[in-house]
């Protein structure tokens, strides 16, 4: 069971790393998609199936495509990155900060007693229906809020992107 965890986390980390370091934008997106699928797999491992599918549906289906479209719109079609930028002070400082943060987090996690908590065993997995019921019953207001937020985001994105067409004509 846990070797699946290692494989999937390896895949996820690889995806993330590649997404960040690759030169070719489209390859980055593909790596990112791999990363998203890795995360979805983790959700399945953690027995949060619904989340897994939602993750795939939203991220892989929508966000990845969105990013691809963004790349298409803002880049020359070849999508190749410009000349490899010199690893200036900026690059090193960024990496240094991230590394230090990683060390500190790791130290924090290891020192915390929670780290050694073991899974509670195979209790009944919450079914999607349950989630649905709770969602609609207890969390209706947030649900509606999220709905409004998403519509607003939708309209906002359209307005920002569209402006170009009206202007160009």
């Amino acid at each position, binding site marked *: 069971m846990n070797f699946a965890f290692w494989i999937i986390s390896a895949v996820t980390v690889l995806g993330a790393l590649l997404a960040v370091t690759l030169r070719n934008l489209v390859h980055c997106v*593909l790596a990112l998609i791999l990363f998203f699928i890795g995360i979805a797999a983790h959700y399945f491992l953690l027995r949060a199936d619904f989340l897994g599918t939602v993750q795939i*549906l939203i991220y892989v289906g929508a966000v990845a495509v969105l990013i691809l479209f963004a790349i298409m719109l803002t880049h020359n079609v070849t999508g190749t990155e410009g000349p490899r930028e010199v690893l200036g002070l900026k690059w090193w400082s960024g990496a240094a900060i991230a590394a230090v943060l990683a060390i500190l987090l790791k130290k924090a996690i290891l020192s915390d007693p929670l780290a050694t908590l073991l899974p509670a065993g195979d209790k009944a997995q919450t079914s999607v229906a349950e989630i649905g019921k709770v969602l609609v019953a207890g969390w209706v207001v947030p649900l509606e809020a999220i709905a409004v937020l998403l519509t607003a985001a939708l309209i906002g994105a359209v307005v920002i992107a569209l402006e170009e067409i009206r202007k160009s004509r």
Partner: protein
Amino acid sequence: MWIAAFLIPIGFIFGVYLTIFAFTTLVERKALGRIQNRYGPNRVGPFGILQPMADGLKILLKEDIVPRAADKFSHFLAPVLIVVPGLLVYLVVPVAPGMVAVDLKIGVLFALAVGTVSVIALFMAGWASRNKFSLLGAMRAVAQVVSYEVPTVMAGVAVIMAAGTLSTLTIVERQGGGILNISNWYVFRPWGLVGFVLFVIGGLAESARCPFDLPEAESELIGGYHTEYSGFKFALFQMGEYLAGMAMAGVTVTLFLGGYMGPGSGPGLVGGVIAMLWFFSKLAGMIMLNIWIRGTWPRLRVDQLMGFAWKVLLPLALVNIVAIGFWHFLTPRPLAWVVTTGWLAIWVVVLTKCNAGAALEKREYRFT
């Protein structure tokens, strides 16, 4: 041991569906021939039965050309990604009672989610071949798939609300019973019928077949996103396309046509076999429907296609959800029938009326 438990369904899926794919190509060409008043392929083997094998062999022997400027990695990966979602859908399609590769509680959602992956594959294919036409074709395909996916999912929501569960098995079970295991099919419900139509149209659009086969419309884009592919990759593209089509057909069957439910299908071995027979016959029927449509309907224009998806199908799907709502809460059955059919009829009229202008506007030619 548990690995074996995994391998058998995978083997079944591969074996069954791939052979169905092979023969669908043949049947399609013969049917189109028939529609076009000509014989289909009948040279290879009796009545052209061996034509698929010949095609397969031919494609295997063909040289696999990769354009120099192409993006090696994604060029190679694209065909694979197109095939995978098609196959993944079959995991959740119940062939016989209890016989489903994986009985996911969120089967339907999984099937639909996986469908979205194909979008990326299309794009990668188009983009990787560094060809303006293929890129245009890919962009069109992506746009089309994405815009038709939404109404399809919404239509599926109606069924899920009716069945109350996402698991495909339970949905099929719910459609059983009734007169000869048929009357309970969702297709015989008003909202079910609307949902069925939406699903069929969605299915055609997603697999870019017939009226919506703009991406690789020969006359305009010389084959769309898979122009640069040749040899086995091209075969994979064909396979992916057909599998996606059949996958949508399978899902349609499970959701609306009662899956393996039919007179005589039951839990036992014999019932199971009869159920499987019912399932595959319904599947064949749906495929024939696709081929039939392909043979008869003209290709849509891009703006008509997009307009149709967002201005007609989506509203209809939302209306359908409302209808299922009425159906669910209006306890006296006939009242439910009247209300939902009336509601749906009104909306159908309204939608066709307000979209009439857009859809059928007279096309003015610049160079008369």
